[in-house]
C-alpha cells in the first residue's frame, strides 16, 4: 500500500519537477536547466488562459447538465420504482459503461454529422444538428459521464427515509417545496461526489474533443499535444499542473460537505 502510494506520488512529483525544465526544441531532448520559463509562458500567453477558462467552463456546464438529468431518474429509481424495477434500472444505467468510451464518442460523431441522425430527426422542426464544436463536446461529455452522476445521487436518495416525504407533506409542503427544501439539501453531498467525477473527467479529456469538437481544443489537448506531438514534456507538465491545482482546490472545498465519503 505504502509503496504504491509512494510510487504514484513520486511519479506525480517527477512530472511536476519536469515542468520546471526546458526543452531543446530541435532534438526534443530535455535540458535540465532550472527555470520558470514554462510557467511564465503559460501565464502570459493569452491563448492558454482562454483554453483554461474554456475547459473549466465546459466542465462546470457538463456537471450541471448531468446533475439536472441525473436527479429525476435517480429519484425515480430510489423512491418510486418497485424493488424489481430498481434492480433492472440499475442494470440499465450501468450497462452503457461497458460500451467502450471511444465507440460511444464515435457514435455521437455519427449522430452529429451534417447528414446524421440528429439532422434527420430535427429537420422537420426547422432545426438542424449543431455540428462539431463546443456544444457537441458538452453534449457528448455529459452523455459519457451521466452514469457516474446517477449512481451517487441514487445511493444518497436511497438513504433518505421515506417518512421524510410524509412528514413534509403533513406539514403542508407541496411536492416541489419538499424536493427543494428537504431533499435537495440532504443529497447535496451526493451531487458533489458525482461532480468530482464529471469535473475531473472533463478537465483531462482530450479524446472526445478530438472526435466531436471540430476545431476546438481543451486543456487536455494542450497537454497531450505538447507531450507527444511537440515532444515538449516540460511544457506539457507545466500545463498539467493547472488541472491538478484546480482539482485539489475543488477537493479541498468539497471536503467540508462530506462528499468525499460518498464516492
Amino acid at each position, binding site marked *: 500500500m505504502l509503496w504504491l502510494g509512494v510510487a504514484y506520488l513520486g511519479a506525480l512529483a517527477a512530472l511536476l519537477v519536469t515542468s520546471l525544465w526546458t526543452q531543446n526544441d530541435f532534438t526534443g531532448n530535455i535540458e535540465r536547466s532550472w527555470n520558470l520559463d514554462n510557467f511564465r509562458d503559460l501565464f502570459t500567453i493569452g491563448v492558454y488562459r482562454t483554453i483554461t477558462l474554456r475547459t473549466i467552463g465546459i466542465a462546470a456546464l457538463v456537471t450541471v447538465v448531468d446533475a439536472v438529468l441525473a436527479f429525476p431518474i435517480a429519484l425515480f429509481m430510489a423512491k418510486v420504482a418497485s424493488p424489481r424495477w430498481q434492480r433492472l434500472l440499475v442494470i440499465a444505467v450501468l450497462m452503457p459503461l461497458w460500451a467502450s468510451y471511444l*465507440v460511444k464518442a464515435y457514435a455521437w460523431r455519427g449522430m452529429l454529422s451534417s447528414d446524421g441522425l440528429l439532422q434527420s430527426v430535427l429537420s422537420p422542426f426547422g432545426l438542424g444538428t449543431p455540428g462539431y464544436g463546443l456544444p457537441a463536446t458538452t453534449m457528448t461529455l455529459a452523455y459519457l459521464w451521466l452514469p457516474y452522476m446517477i449512481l451517487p445521487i441514487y445511493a444518497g436518495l436511497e438513504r433518505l427515509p421515506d417518512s421524510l416525504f410524509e412528514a413534509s407533506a403533513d406539514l403542508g409542503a407541496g411536492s416541489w417545496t419538499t424536493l427543494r427544501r428537504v431533499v435537495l439539501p440532504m443529497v447535496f453531498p451526493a451531487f458533489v461526489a458525482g461532480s468530482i467525477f464529471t469535473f475531473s473527467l472533463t478537465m483531462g479529456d482530450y479524446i472526445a474533443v478530438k472526435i466531436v469538437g471540430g476545431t476546438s481544443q481543451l486543456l487536455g489537448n494542450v497537454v497531450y499535444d505538447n507531450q507527444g506531438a511537440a515532444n515538449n514534456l516540460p511544457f506539457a507538465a507545466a500545463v498539467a499542473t493547472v488541472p491538478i491545482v484546480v482539482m485539489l482546490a475543488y477537493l479541498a472545498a468539497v471536503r467540508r460537505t462530506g462528499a468525499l465519503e460518498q464516492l
Partner: protein
Amino acid sequence: MRLPGGLRLSLWVITVVVLVVIYVPLLLVLLNSFNTNRTFAWPPPGFTTHWWSLAWHSDGARSALWTSTRVAVAATAMALVLGTLAAMALRRTRFFGRNVVSLLIILPIALPGIVTGLAFQNGFRTILGIDLSLWTIVIAHTTFCIVTVFNNVQARFQRLGGNLEQASMDLGAGPFTTFRLITLPMLRSALLAGGLLSFGLSFDEIVVTQFTASSTDRTLPIWIFENLFRPNQAPIVNCVAAALVLFSAVPIYLAQRLSGSAAEAITGAR
C-alpha cells in the same frame, strides 16, 4: 409509494426520456454493426451480417479482449488486497495524516487521466528506466481501482462496526483466524461490488493505458482506438462493442443478486 401522484408521473416520464437518450447512441452502434457502408453513413444504405462474421474470426479482437481481461483481473486482485488493507488500517485510529491519506487514495481517480498517465509514463521510463509492459499497465490501473474497493469496504465497516471481531478475539481466536472466519465473510459482498466496479473501470480505461502500454500490448480500448481508424476494421469494432454491452448485463445482474440492496452493492456508499 409515498410520493404524490403528479410527481411520480413526471418522474416516470423523465426517466423514460433519459433512458432513451442513454440508449439511442448504443442502438446506433448496434445498427452500424450491420451497416453495409464502412464509414457508417446515415441512413444505412443496406444491412449485412458480414461484419459480425469478420468480428467472430478477428484474431486482433480476441487477443485484445484476452489482454484486457488479464489486466483487469490482475488490477482488481491487487486493488482488492490493497484496498482492504487500507480500509482496515484507516478504520480505527485517528492519526495526523489520516485525512491526507484518504485524500491521497482518492487522488488517482480525482485527477484527470492524462495527468496520471503522463506521470506514470515519465516515472517508469525516464526515472526508473524500465520498459513499459503489461505490468506497468496493471500498476497504473491498480492505483485508481483501489478507490472503489476502499470505499466499499470502508462503508461496510462503518455499518457493521467491530463488535463481532472483538467478540471473536475475546473467545480466543488469533487475528488471522478472526480475519478469515469473521471479517472476510462480513466483507464478501462489499468486496464483490468493489471488485466488479474496479474490473469495469480497468476494462474500459483508455487514457492512462495509452501512456503506460508498450507498443505491442493491446488492451481492448487500444485495439478499438487503432481500428476505428481503418476502413475495414471500424465496423468490426462496433460489433465488439455491441456484444460487450449485451454481455455486461450478466455480471451486473449477478453482482446485484449476491449483494442485497442494489444501491449499496454498486456504490458501496452509506
